[in-house]
């Protein structure tokens, strides 16, 4: 086999392989794992995070603005400390509130941010003070049953 023909085919093969890798990286996967250089972290404490997991999206007005970087248990407050890694392009007021929500009825859980009215913006390592816990289905059902029992009770 002619050497240049051989080189040509191997070159084509390598280009195709790298092209496939790029396709996987850009089109199939998301390179949007925000890296630390263009992101900042804020911490939010929740009493109950439900089924929230690391890498879950952080959304504001339905748009993904970051990801959950880390979830730890704060042994002093007995609360869950959730670290949110947000994109630097988006700045939020200091009194922004965070809530754990579910997409759809049985979908994945995500953190929803609702901007407040403060003129100061959240900075790296700041804490989000207003939080709303995940809705636990058992508690909801319990409350509902309790309410029903109250209704039916003789006056």
């Amino acid at each position: 086999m002619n050497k240049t023909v051989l080189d040509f085919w191997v070159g084509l093969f390598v280009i195709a392989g790298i092209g496939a890798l790029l396709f996987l990286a850009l089109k199939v996967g998301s390179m949007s794992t925000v890296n630390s250089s263009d992101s900042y972290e804020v911490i939010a404490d929740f009493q109950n995070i439900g089924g929230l997991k690391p890498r879950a999206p952080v959304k504001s007005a339905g748009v993904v603005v970051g990801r959950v970087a880390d979830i730890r248990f704060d042994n002093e407050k007995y609360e869950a400390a959730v670290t949110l890694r947000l994109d630097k392009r988006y700045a939020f007021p200091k009194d922004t509130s965070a809530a754990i929500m579910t997409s759809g009825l049985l979908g994945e859980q995500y953190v929803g941010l609702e901007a407040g009215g403060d003129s100061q913006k959240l900075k790296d390592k700041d804490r989000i003070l207003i939080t709303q816990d995940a809705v636990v289905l058992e508690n909801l059902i319990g409350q509902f049953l309790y309410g029903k029992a109250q209704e039916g009770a003789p006056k």
Partner: protein
Amino acid sequence: MLKQAIENLGNHTIQGVWRIGFASRFFLSMLLHSGTAFRRFGLTIREMYFTGVLSLIIILVSGLFVGMVLGLQGYETLQRYGSESALGTLVALSLVRELGPVLAGLLFASRAGSAITAEIGLMKATEQLSAMEMMAVDPIARVVAPRFWAGVISMPLLAALFSAMGVLGGYLVGVKLIGVDEGTFWSQMQGAVDFEQDILNGVIKSVVFGIAVTTIALFEGYDAPPTAEGVSGATTRTVVTSSLVVLALDFILTAFMFRGLN
């Protein structure tokens, strides 16, 4: 009778240990002599043509069909729960994490591994390797190491091509044929597939499979009895052993890589 059985067991054990020792020494000397494979990169490129380029057709076609079947079957199951929008996620995750590297590894073992074993076994049987030694050319450096590096470089590229073709096949069946919404197909996929966790781990897997398959193929060829029967037996052993090793390694790697997730 019993003595005979014990003797057989002992004999097999000694043979097995000897082979493992020989294989490790072979592997080490292959690594030590890989300088030539890079200094005379033309040799490696030549081998990449035979192991990589000539495996392209079977890899691309199988990838496409595996993806299309995944699309069909995945849709069939997912639509029962009204979540056919997750089809992209299913196809991409199963291909990138498992099917791409594993099936490409199995195909690589039977397409390229068997050829390597037969070639080296025949070189040994026709005493080409001894002739090289007579001319003070190290056959490990000249023949074995370039084939090893060609396999190790080709394998991840082939696995990536397999996965990419599979995703394309799933797209063709899911979106073009069945009519899953194109936007949700891609966006759900991109939301679920992470570059580091999924794609990079898949690439690592395929590199490991490449090392395992080519090492087994080269060793079986180098160790083959120099007869027609010996070479044919070695070729069979290459395909069987490397397929089993790929499956076993895949289980171990998956247990390490993906256990902490989800």
